């Protein structure tokens, strides 16, 4: 559980790391990453998509290209020295890919030093945006990539399981960040206890956690609260079918603020469209195949919103 904050390296003004996490598999996260990368490239950004789903990489399939012969795993295992050597062109201008490492046994459990090396090299790439497609689940590797990102996107679909996992993801990420900032072992112990949902202290939410820490160490609370304000996940609601589904994004933001004390925002939504899945089966990138379709427009809107640093605020 160490090192989440130590990974927060100095941020150059132009180059940014974005990530898409989601807690749950099968919610279209890789497709979102691929199409968001495509739209960002269309907006003139030089983008490299990184398949950071180290256990089940498939971003290349979403882009409609064969599995690259060299992957992030080769870089991690030092079969190649430079990260540029595992970066491949895609059929789309300004969009490149670093494929995942599903072929490398054990790569899903890279250690701390390997992680730092990957992140340092990603930050040094000569591009505008590094877009990480994170794997499913809440493993520390995934959370750390999420935490170091300049833009941390959290994909959900309007289904109970996905939203429950989304909250779990937020809590795991936030607790990891708070733990790294905890000034004393006693405070770390409280945070560790909170990670167990059935903890004896009755800590269910980050706000409960702050109250428990305050009882232990009043001075530490100020610091943890500051960490909380700097934690800023952005929701993308995928596969919406109705205005009520679209409203879920706004509800998640309010629920995070009121019940978790987390300052989230709503980056946008994408409608469910059968054409997307038909394109996937044909191993084509659906936004490129149908750039005037509704999902393509919606993803363009998300890309623009994020590039311009805006959010979908409610109208009051």
């Amino acid at each position: 559980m160490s090192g989440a904050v130590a990974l927060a390296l100095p941020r150059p003004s132009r180059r940014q790391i974005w990530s898409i996490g989601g807690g749950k598999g099968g919610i279209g996260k890789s497709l979102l990453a691929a199409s968001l990368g495509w739209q960002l490239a269309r907006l003139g950004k030089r983008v490299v998509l990184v398949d950071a789903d180290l256990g089940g990489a498939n971003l290349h399939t979403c882009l409609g290209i064969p599995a690259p012969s060299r992957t992030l795993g080769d870089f991690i295992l030092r079969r190649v020295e430079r990260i540029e050597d595992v970066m491949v062109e895609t059929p789309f201008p300004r969009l490149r890919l670093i494929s995942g490492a599903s072929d490398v046994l054990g790569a899903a459990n890279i250690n701390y030093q390997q992680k730092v090396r990957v992140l340092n090299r990603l930050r040094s790439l000569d591009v505008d945006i590094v877009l990480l497609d994170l794997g499913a689940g809440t493993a520390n590797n995934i959370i750390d990539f999420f935490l170091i990102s300049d833009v941390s996107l959290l994909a959900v679909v309007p289904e109970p399981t996905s939203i429950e996992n989304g909250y779990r993801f937020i809590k795991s990420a936030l607790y990891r960040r708070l733990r790294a900032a905890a000034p004393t072992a006693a405070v770390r112990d409280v945070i560790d206890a909170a990670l167990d949902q059935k903890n004896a202290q009755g800590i269910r939410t980050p706000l409960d956690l702050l109250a428990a820490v305050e009882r232990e160490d009043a001075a530490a609370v100020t610091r943890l609260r500051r960490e909380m304000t700097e934690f800023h996940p952005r929701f993308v609601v995928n596969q919406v079918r109705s205005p009520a589904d679209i409203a879920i994004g706004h509800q998640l933001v309010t629920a995070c603020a009121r019940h978790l004390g987390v300052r989230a925002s709503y980056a946008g939504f994408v409608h469910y469209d059968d054409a997307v899945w038909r394109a996937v089966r044909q191993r084509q990138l659906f936004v490129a195949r149908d750039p005037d379709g509704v999902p393509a427009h919606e993803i363009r809107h998300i890309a623009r919103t994020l590039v311009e640093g805006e959010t979908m605020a409610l109208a009051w």
Partner: protein
Amino acid sequence: MTPRVETHYAVLGIGPRATPEQVDRAYRHAAGLYDEEALATYSLLDSEERQQARARVEAAYVVLRDAGRRREYDLSLGMAETVASLVPSPPVVDAPARPPLVVLPDPVTGPDLKRFRESRGIPLREIAAASKVGVRFLEYIESERLDALPAPVYLRGFVQEYARVVGLDPRPTAQSYLARVAGGR
């Protein structure tokens, strides 16, 4: 977990200068959030907590929707600012009465307008009520039913009204939309 004492304004996530329309909209949002079926809170709150939250929302709305009761309530508060909550940085409470007007990139299409409206959670009937433009015409605008749209001089006014209610900058929105549909007529 939740703040000990919350004003009715804080419960609905609005500022004390909120208009009646904003109160209605905030109420719908909050009521949806704590609905028994609400996906956004089902795994965060148990049934009893949701029920309590709903009761707070209803209590707030009963007062704030009624001009007389709202005035009385404001006086009882001394119109002080909202009570500070435990939430480190609440994004909605104390927010300015309205976010700045948005200018969509050119060309503005009917589906663009619809998408923006839906993202703000504003039903067409609300635009109709505020603008006196019928729901049917608003639907024509969104679906770009060129055969059914009125003459440009009226259409410009309709689109500007639509834009104003959803929070888009009326003038450039109408200009871009009209330029686009003029090409299709």
